[in-house]
């Protein structure tokens, strides 16, 4: 008894369909696993298009302190983006003939607001307080507040276009709060903090959900 003859079409189609289903399933499974445990697909950071090609590198090279423009980083939740007036304060004199500065000056003239593209983006339902972080590191390491910014924002002084260097997802925050922050402290500060935390004099960084999620 001979085996029934399998049509060629079936011979090809069945493994093909099987392969597609298998591969599809694999993709979905990997997607599930990746989305669940780590950063989801795609670029972690989306480059924002900006209305004006602002050059962080030039401003840092000119030795302008971060806090000169992002004035509220020591005082509140947001570091804040400066108002157009602040830009114009210098640029009504400095480089006023450059085409990008001309754009700025015309926006200032019109009285409209300048809609910058958002560069750093946190997940939904999260609050981040600049003040607490900047003050902590600058006090502990005994450095100027503006030297702390690069811990999260990278070396902005080398960026032509500002971009997000860390993914700023929850793991990023939590890793640091659970002890990763020692990596950013000077050895003396690290020793002092460890001592204070073990002796109960001060609290370890909070890991309560309601610290950030509200």
């Amino acid at each position: 008894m001979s085996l029934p003859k399998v049509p060629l079409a079936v011979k090809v189609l069945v493994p093909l369909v099987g392969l597609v289903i298998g591969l599809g399933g694999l993709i979905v499974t990997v997607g599930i696993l990746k989305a669940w445990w780590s950063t989801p697909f795609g670029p972690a950071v989306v480059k924002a298009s900006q209305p004006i090609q602002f050059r962080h590198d030039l401003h840092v090279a000119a030795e302008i302190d971060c806090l000169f423009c992002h004035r509220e980083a020591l005082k509140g939740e947001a570091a804040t983006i400066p108002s157009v007036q602040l830009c114009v304060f210098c640029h009504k004199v400095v480089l006023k003939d450059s085409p990008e500065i001309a754009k700025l000056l015309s926006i200032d003239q019109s009285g409209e607001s300048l809609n910058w593209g958002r560069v750093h983006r946190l997940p939904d339902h999260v609050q981040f307080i600049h003040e607490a972080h900047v003050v902590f590191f600058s006090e502990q390491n005994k450095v100027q507040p503006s030297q702390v910014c690069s811990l999260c924002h990278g070396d902005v002084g080398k960026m032509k276009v500002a971009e997000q260097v860390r993914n700023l997802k929850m793991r990023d925050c939590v890793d640091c709060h659970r002890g990763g922050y020692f990596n950013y402290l000077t050895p003396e500060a690290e020793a002092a903090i460890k001592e204070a935390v073990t002796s109960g004099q001060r609290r370890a960084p909070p890991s309560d959900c309601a610290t950030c999620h509200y």
Partner: protein
Amino acid sequence: MAIERKPEPKWVMVVDADRCSGCQACVVACQAENNVPLNTDAIFNQKRAHEWIRIERYWVSGDPDKRPDEVDFKNLKVKFLPLMCQQCENAPCEPVCPVYATYHNDQGLNVQVYNRCIGTRYCANNCNYNVRFFNFWEPVWPETLRNQLNPDVTVRSRGIMEKCTFCVQRIRRGDRLVKRENRDFKDGDVTPACVQSCPTGALAFGNIKDEKSAVAKMAHDDRHYRLLEEQGTGPNVIYLKKVDLHAAEDKAHE
């Protein structure tokens, strides 16, 4: 470093029902502070209005022997009761959440983590006080009204449970304030929106661990009770009973 470790505060609200006139100022103050979705008439008709704090109105019979619907219209009274999340010590909503979206924190708050919430609504069903509200739809504000939204507070999306947080964003500000000034909490450091607005002063808020605080003193008032405390939920909202001159007479009859 000079910052000493301070004991965690325990936040408690005291509601003096005798002062409450039912004026609803707290309700709108809360909606303005916490980006609560607009309650349209359709939403009221679906019985899905979000009021993190609401004023309950109870008809009370002036005649102890009769029910409110039996007495003459002249013989009726009303009691107003502001009701918000009771931040229970032993909260019925917490153990039923399959994803741990609601839990109790060190400061005595019953916290709702929006990111974790997957919208099973078990917590709302298990809540004794009906103070949890579910976003059945994406909340909608006309474009211009969004200018009013409070940036300190998350805008919740569809499928998420929300409730009174004791204005946790203001508590966080208070945390930073006392840390900056290196001192303990005192009255007035943290004032939730409802408490701040209440014109009759029926609401008070503070750290009950601090014996000098107003709430600690009020907690020992003769009129104090907690809502449904016999069910063992351990609410962190203390009520002071409305004084009823006629109820006192009833007691004399007993």
